[in-house]
Each structure stands twice: as C-alpha cells, then as structure tokens.
C-alpha cells in the first residue's frame, strides 16, 4: 500500500488548487459553527460565572418606602437565602465640560463590609467609607465616557439639593451590564450613569432613614422565583410596591439574555447553511474528481487491488481533502470564536472571560463535513470500484447528446457553435448545472441576509425615531406630577411645544396569559409621539379602551373587541377590565397605550403626568439644559438625536463585525463553487478546448466556452440567490424576533446589488485563475492521447 499512499500524496499535491478551494469551503462551514457555538458557550459560561461570583440577586422589588424591619420578615420566606435592602434614586448631574443634563442612578451600598447581594467588582480606587457622605463609586462605562477618575468631582441635584460628589472608585456590577436610562432603547453612557453611594448618605439625602425603597433577594437553588414573588408582593403591597420581578425580567439581564438568545439563533441557522453548502460542494467536487480518475482505477484493479482497497484509497483522498478543511476551520473558528467572545465581553464589560471551547463543537463540525464529503464521493467511488478493469481503463464512450427542439428553433439556429456547446453542456447535465447555480445562489443569499441587517436597522430608525418620535427631547419626572408641571416646563426657555405622557407599570392579563409591562397615556391627537399602525397610518386615540402593539396582543392572544384585565402596580394599584380598541405594529418593545384622560380616571387621579415630550428651539438649548438641571421634579432627559446616534453606533459596531464575517464567508463560498466547477470542467474537457485552440480559436474564444458556461450558471444563480437571500432574511428576522425587537424584513435593491457584486467579484477571481490555465493549455499532448 505504500506506493498507493505515495500516489495519494502526489495526487493531492497535483490537485492542490482544488484541494485548497474545497478546503476553504469546508473550513468556512466548520469555522462558522465553531465560532458561533464556542462564542455562545463562552458568553453563557462567563455570564453565569460573573453572576455567581458577584452574587447577582434572583428577585428584585421596588417600593415607595418600607421599614427596614421588614427585611427580617422577607428573609424568613421559604426559599430565600439572603436579602439586601437598598435605596435607589435618580439624580440630575452636572458634569464639567458636558452641557446636557446627565441622569444618575444612585444605588446604595453598605459603608462597611460587602453587600450580601449584587456585589461590585472594583476596577480602581476604593469603595465608599463611613462618615464621608459625598463619596461615590462610578460604573466604569460612565466614568470612561466622561473621563472621570478617583479624586474627580461633579455636581448632583439630589432631592432638590445641589451636592458636590467626589469619585473614590470605579466599579462594575452584574446588575448593570446593560445600564439604560428611563425610556432609553440603548445604553447611553454619556447621558446616563449608575453610581453607588453609602447607604447612610443616601438615606439622609432622601429622608429614608430606617427605610428602604428597593430589595433584592438571593434564592436557594431549588426554589421557584414565581412562588416567592407572590408572597413578597403580598408582603410589600402596602408599601407602594410596583410588583417584584424575577432575575429573568431584570432589565440588564433581560437584554443580556436577549443578546445571547440572538447569538444562539445565529449559531444554529448560519452554520447549518454553511455546513450544508460546504457539504454540497464537497459532494459535487468529490464525485466529479473521482470520475476523472477512472482509468487509474482500472489500472489498480488490473494489478489486483480489490474493490475494497480501491474504495479505501479514494476514501482516504476524500478524508485528506476534507481534513485540510476541517483543521483550517477549527483553527479559524477557534480564533474567530475568541475574537467574537472578546468583542461581546468588551461590549458587556465582563470583568472575566471564560473561553473553553467544548471539544464536542469541533467534533460536530468535523463529523458533518466529513460525512457529507464521503457521501458525495461514495457514489463515484462505488461506481469506479465496481467497473470491470478493462472497461475502466478504456476511455468512456463519447457522451451522448441529443438535439433539442430549441436548437431547431429560429433562435437556436441563429446561435454560434461555441454558444451551442455551452447550452448543450448545461442541458446534458441539468442537475450538475443546477447545483452549481444553487451554490452561487447560496453565496449570494448569505450575503443578502447579512447585509439586510443594515436596511432593517435603517428602517427601525426611520420609523421609530423619525416618524413616531417627533419630539426633540423627552423629560421624565420624579413620580407623578400635576398639570402644573406641564405649564412650568412650557414656560422654560426654548420650549416650542410640550405634550404630556403618563406611564405606569402594570400587569396585563387575558385568561391564563399575562405580561408584566406598562401602560402609557397619551393625548388624543399626539403631535410629538405618534402611533403608527403596520400600514403606516396614524392611529387615532379613542377616548376609552386599550391600544395594544400587535406583539403584545399575540402574547396575550387577544384581538380588537376582547378585554384585558389590567392591574396597575403603582399608585392606588387599580384593577380593571379594559377592552382592546385598536392594534398597531411596532418594531420595539410591547407597548400598550390609552387616552390620558381615561388613564387618569383608571388611576383615580386628577390630571397627572410622568413624562413630557418637547419640541425645542435648538438655539436655546444651553439655557434649557441649565433650567432642566435645576428642576428637582426632572428625573430624566432623553435627547432624540443622542439616542439615534447611540443606537447607530452600537448597532454599527456589532453589524460591521457580523457583516464582514459573512461577507468573507460568502466570498469563500462563491469562489469555491466557481473555482471547483470550472477546474473540474477544465480537466474533463481540456482535450476539447485544446482541439479548438488547434483549429484556430484564440484562448479568449475557448475561455468563452468554459467560462461562458460558468457565467451563465452564475447568471442564473444571482437572481436565485437574491430570492433565497430574501427567504433567509425572513427566516432570520423571524428567528430573531424577541420581545424587545422585531427586525423588519426590509431589503433594498442596493443590498441585492451589493451582494451580487461581491459574489461576482469572488467568482471573477476564480474565473481569472482558471483562465490563466486555459492560456497555457498543452496543445500537443491532447492530440496524441485519447483521454
């Protein structure tokens, strides 16, 4: 067998171009799988480890004010392991060199010792100390956004009092992996920051001595958060509780899990596509490659090698080719997985990173690719191995062609012979041709799917920020305020228009289905925050009833005319059965609206509001900012432009990485398909082409025959690819559909065009490589040898 092995190695070396092209395709499939799954696992493990290490709480509850003695009572609830009561407040900050108001989320930590839950990871400096009420520890992203370091100072409007706070430390917390200001869609570290202060200092500032307004619970491993929440809610009911939430609904964790969930979708759908393509290519290439080796197979058998030995010889060849791809894919995938994980870990600011790719992931990638390639070669090997040696050694009979009705048609008769050769070749092996077109199409479709993300994000921004939100600024208020506040705000410098909004957290229930979210009250014809339905028409706000986002209606399984049981979790906590009067489509969140007056009646309150949308004169912004910073009732200021910018930046960063990965992989696919099919066609038809050269055809003219066939198949593949790309996009947007985001399926013509151009570039490159070979065809050799 040693001579055979030598032959194998030399064959592989001779075919190195093709081996590499197949390997690139297989490597792409394996790499995407390894990358996605290893990054996914790493993120899950890292998040879990981070949560455990910092004792991230399992249940959170907010109250208006509750006495600290309640803590003992809570800790006796069955299943509760530890309880940490805290004070959480909002403050308006003035940071030097930054004109706009900044919202600070103040969270209490013990002045002495570590908190029992939600422990901080100190990045620099120290924690706060007893007797220094103006000391503050900043969340790292916020500190970095403003270049604040231990020793720096800034001003804060706390409970109506202007204070000067001193930064003593920079920290991270599992509770604020995503830190978002009220009403924000994306983290904005310049305008919203989390900071920790001493418990005593905060209690003094907000008149909460001996009391708390937030409590976190750590649970025993086998206890159910849902049962404990029921008991906790009952306990806190009379203290102005908004209803406890489990960790899975905690905003930062929810975002994180959503992100991981999306990654999971990507890591199942995309590698499947890539592996399928790689498998298909391996299959196609192997069978044709072995078919061209037919006379050698006959020779081996004439020497006395058994069918089994011949089959094993080619199996080894397939395994070797595949092996190159698998190892390349492993290396590339592990490296990209690490890069990917680091990008995410950086985005989430995990203070630790666990990257231990599971060997199982590597094994799956290898097994799928190998099986596919072997399956592809199986037929060809079996066919070759079972041929009687004499038949195998003699050249195959000339391929049979038939005249079609088409070639007798007027158009057919008008065709020149080279074009006829192209068309007959395609029609003679329609399956093989179709598969090549499909290979190209897959390459295009992957590209379309990756690029459609940009279109989708643009669409979201257009609809969410430009059509729906017409305000320049939203102002959040501390608790519910009366109409008086609206009048005050209207009088501020630079305010052109102001519209009130109400917002309360609530449970919405229908039958056994429920959703914990909120209800927003809007005026009957809002100019600044419009509500659009799926058709792009403005939804009018009827005086009574609920207007639900379609996604929420789906979750509750209700339609127009059905009623929803609403339990408001704030204020007097009213409960009421309210009919659904209208539905609308939105890409973000699962909002529910009602008329502000109906809302007031539901709450049993006179005209109140929690937020105001503003249209402002941009020339008077500085004055407006100054006024807002000094208003104690203001708890949040959200600027639309800043929000759009932030949204764009975060999305762009993530998307560029994602898109460049897939652009590269799509190119590898396109290249692999075209290079392999033309190279094999060249080896099958080299003699025919050389004959044409001898007959006086230029190398350009024979290139037309070989590459023209490829070009025609590519031409079929391109629109097919766009079509499949739309399908894949649909699949992905559906799979990525979360409670937070709905990705609209928007694919612009430019996206299709870009995908087509990129694929064309990759295929042109491989065609150019093959063309070079055509220029150096050995004309003499083909005349003498028969095949």
């Amino acid at each position, binding site marked *: 067998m040693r001579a055979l092995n030598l032959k194998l190695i030399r064959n592989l070396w001779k075919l190195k171009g093709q081996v590499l092209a197949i390997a690139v395709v297989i490597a792409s499939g394996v790499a995407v799988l390894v990358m996605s799954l290893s990054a996914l696992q790493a993120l899950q493990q890292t998040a879990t480890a981070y949560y455990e290490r910092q004792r991230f709480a399992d249940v959170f509850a907010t109250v208006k004010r509750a006495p600290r003695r309640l803590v003992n009572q809570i800790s006796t609830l069955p299943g509760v392991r530890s309880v940490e009561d805290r004070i959480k407040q909002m403050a308006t900050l003035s940071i030097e060199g930054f004109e706009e108001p900044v919202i600070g989320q103040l969270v209490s930590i013990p002045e002495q010792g570590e908190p029992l839950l939600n422990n901080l990871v100190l990045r620099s400096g120290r924690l706060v100390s007893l007797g220094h009420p103006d000391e503050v520890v900043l969340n790292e992203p916020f500190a970095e956004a403003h270049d604040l370091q231990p020793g720096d100072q800034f001003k804060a409007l706390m409970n109506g009092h202007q204070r000067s706070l001193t930064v003593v430390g920079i920290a991270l917390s599992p509770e604020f992996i995503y830190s978002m200001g009220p009403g924000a869609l994306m983290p904005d570290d310049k305008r919203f920051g989390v900071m920790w202060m001493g418990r005593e200092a905060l209690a003094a500032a907000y008149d909460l001595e001996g009391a708390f307004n937030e409590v976190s619970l750590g649970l025993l491993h086998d206890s159910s958060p849902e049962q404990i929440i029921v008991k906790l809610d009952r306990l806190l009911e009379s203290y102005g509780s908004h209803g406890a939430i489990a960790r899975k609904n905690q905003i930062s964790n929810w975002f994180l899990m959503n992100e991981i969930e999306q990654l999971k979708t990507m890591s199942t759908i995309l590698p499947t596509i890539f592996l399928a393509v790689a498998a298909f290519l391996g299959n196609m290439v192997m069978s044709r490659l072995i078919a061209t080796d037919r006379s050698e197979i006959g020779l081996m058998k004439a020497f006395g090698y058994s069918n089994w030995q011949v089959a094993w010889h080619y199996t080894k060849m397939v395994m070797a080719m595949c092996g190159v791809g698998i190892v390349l894919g492993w290396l590339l995938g592990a490296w990209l997985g690490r890069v990917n994980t680091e990008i995410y870990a950086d985005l989430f600011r995990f203070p630790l990173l666990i990257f231990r790719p599971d060997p199982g992931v590597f094994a799956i990638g290898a097994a799928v690719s190998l099986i596919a390639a072997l399956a592809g070669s199986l037929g060809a090997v079996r066919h070759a191995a079972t041929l009687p040696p004499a038949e195998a050694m003699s050249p195959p*009979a*000339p*391929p*049979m*062609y*038939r*005249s079609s009705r088409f070639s007798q048609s007027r158009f057919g008769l008008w065709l*020149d*012979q*080279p074009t*006829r*050769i192209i068309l*007959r*070749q395609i029609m*003679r092996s329609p399956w093989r041709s179709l598969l090549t077109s499909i290979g190209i199409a897959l390459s295009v479709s992957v590209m379309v799917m990756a690029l459609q993300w940009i279109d989708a994000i643009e669409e979201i921004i257009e609809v969410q920020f430009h059509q729906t939100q017409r305000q320049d600024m939203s102002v959040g208020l501390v608790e519910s305020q009366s109409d008086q506040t609206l009048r005050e705000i209207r009088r501020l410098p630079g305010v052109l228009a102001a519209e009130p909004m109400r917002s309360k957290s609530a449970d919405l229930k229908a039958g056994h289905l429920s959703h914990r979210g909120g209800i927003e009250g809007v005026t009957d014809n809002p100019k600044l925050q419009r509500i659009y339905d799926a058709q792009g028409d403005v939804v009018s706000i009827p005086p009574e009833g609920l207007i639900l986002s379609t996604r929420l209606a789906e979750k509750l399984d209700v339609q127009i005319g059905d009623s929803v049981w609403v339990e408001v979790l704030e204020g007097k906590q009213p409960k009421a059965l309210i009919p659904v009067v209208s539905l609308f489509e939105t890409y973000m969140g699962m909002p529910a609206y009602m008329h502000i007056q109906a809302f007031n009646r539901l709450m049993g309150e006179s005209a109140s509001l929690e937020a105001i949308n503003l249209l402002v004169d941009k020339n008077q912004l500085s004055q407006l900012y100054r006024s807002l910073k000094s208003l104690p009732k203001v708890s949040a200021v959200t600027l639309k432009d800043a929000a759009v910018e932030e949204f764009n930046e975060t999305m762009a960063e993530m998307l560029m990485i994602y898109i460049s990965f897939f652009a590269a992989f799509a190119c590898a696919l396109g290249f692999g398909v075209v290079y392999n099919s033309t190279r094999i066609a060249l080896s099958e038809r080299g*003699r*025919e082409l050389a*004959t*044409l*050269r*001898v*007959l*006086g*055809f*230029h*190398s350009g*003219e024979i290139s037309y025959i070989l590459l023209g066939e490829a070009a025609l198949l590519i031409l079929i593949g391109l629109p097919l690819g766009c079509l499949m790309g739309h399908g894949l996009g649909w699949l992905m947007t559906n799979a990525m559909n979360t409670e937070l985001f709905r990705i609209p399926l928007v694919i612009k013509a430019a996206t299709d065009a870009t995908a087509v151009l990129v694929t064309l570039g990759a295929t042109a490159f491989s065609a150019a490589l093959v063309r070079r070979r055509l220029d150096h065809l050995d*004309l*003499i050799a*083909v*005349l*003498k040898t*028969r095949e």
Partner: protein
Amino acid sequence: MSDSGSSSIPHITLQGQGLTKVYHTGSVDVHALRGVDLELREGELVVLLGPSGSGKSTLLNILGGLDSPSSGEVTFRDMRISADDESTLTRYRRDHVGFVFQFYNLIPSLTARENVSLVTEIAKRAMDPAEALALVGLAERLDHFPAQLSGGEQQRVAIARAIAKRPDILLCDEPTGALDSQTGILVLEAIERVNQEMGTTTAVITHNSVIGEMADRVLHFANGHVADYQENSLRKGAHELSW
C-alpha cells in the same frame, strides 16, 4: 537532409529550414528533430513515414503552428511563422491550416454539421458545412452527434471540419491510426478527394508504409531527421490500397 526535388514543380507552400527541436525533460535533453529541411509544394500530397518516436509528429506540430522549433525557421509562402507569438500562430492555424487527428477530436456536444460550422464560422472563405460533409461522403449524416457515428464517420467529419475553411495546407496525424483497414481506406479516399478536387497541399503522417503509395512524395523519418526520400511517379488511388 534536403529533398532535392526537381525545379519544374509549382510554388512552395510551406518550407522548413534547419529545424531542430530539443525537449528538456529533467536532466535529459531529448532531440526530437535534428536539422530538418523540407518543402511542401502547392497541391501535392506528401506522406511522412516513420516509426513512433522518429520525430514526425514533432515536425507536423511545428509546421502546423502548434509548436515552435528550437532553431531553424518555417516559412508559409512569404511569412515566417516560427515566431513565438501566440496570436500569429493562432491566426496562421485559423486561416491556413486544417488539422486531422488520430482520435478525431470532435466536439461531442455538436452534430456533424455543427462541428464543421465551428470552423466555418471563424474562417474567411469557408464553404458550406453541408458541402464539406458531402465531399467526405457524409451528406446523409449531417445532424448526427459524434456518439451516433462510427469511428470512420467521425474521422471523416474531422476531415470535413479541416477542409471546410479551404485551408492552404491539410495536416493529418495518423488519420487511420484508430481505424480498421476498410474504414481507414474510406478516410484516405476522403483525404485524396480533397487533395485532388480542391488542390489542397496535404501532409499525412503515418507509420503504415502502404499509405505512402498514394502520395506524390514519401519522406522516411528516423531519429529526428529525414533518412530517406522517395518520389512516386504514379500515385495509387486510395481504393487500391490494402493492409
């Protein structure tokens, strides 16, 4: 060695002077041609006879513009064609040379007529493909694909394809090598007819000495040069041959 033909013969179509060809394979130099001089005169039929490895195919390749000599030059009428210029060689093959190969080299996806059209479409003064096929006795088989034709028929299609462009020179490399004698004679008849009716200068390579009897002249090849030379005062008809 020169073929010292008489001076009363018509124009020289193709001339090779001092042709040598050395193939460098690894550390060994193979001298395929060792200084060959020859002339092909207008309208004559020349047979190059010799055992395999004697250099006759190399000579034919060089004369046909498929290869360039290591030294010496080939002149077609007044044009030097041994230049290492791909496009000049291509043009030469396209406009002036017709090739017939041992293994026919038909395009399997084209019918007999289409195989001929392949050449007539790019030639300057081509004949009608049907006419060319009729000349080789295949008027009835115009729309058959190669797989539907016998070996002899395929070779005759190849001849029709070679002559349809009215080449100045027809070069045939072992045209009967893959055929039985009966079919081979049919093919030779086609070549003979083209040579006589169209006056195409024809060179046939073969190791079958019988075929030499139908030639005007026979050049015997051995070890890379013309070892012997013979002029037939009387050409036999292809149908008179047998082997």
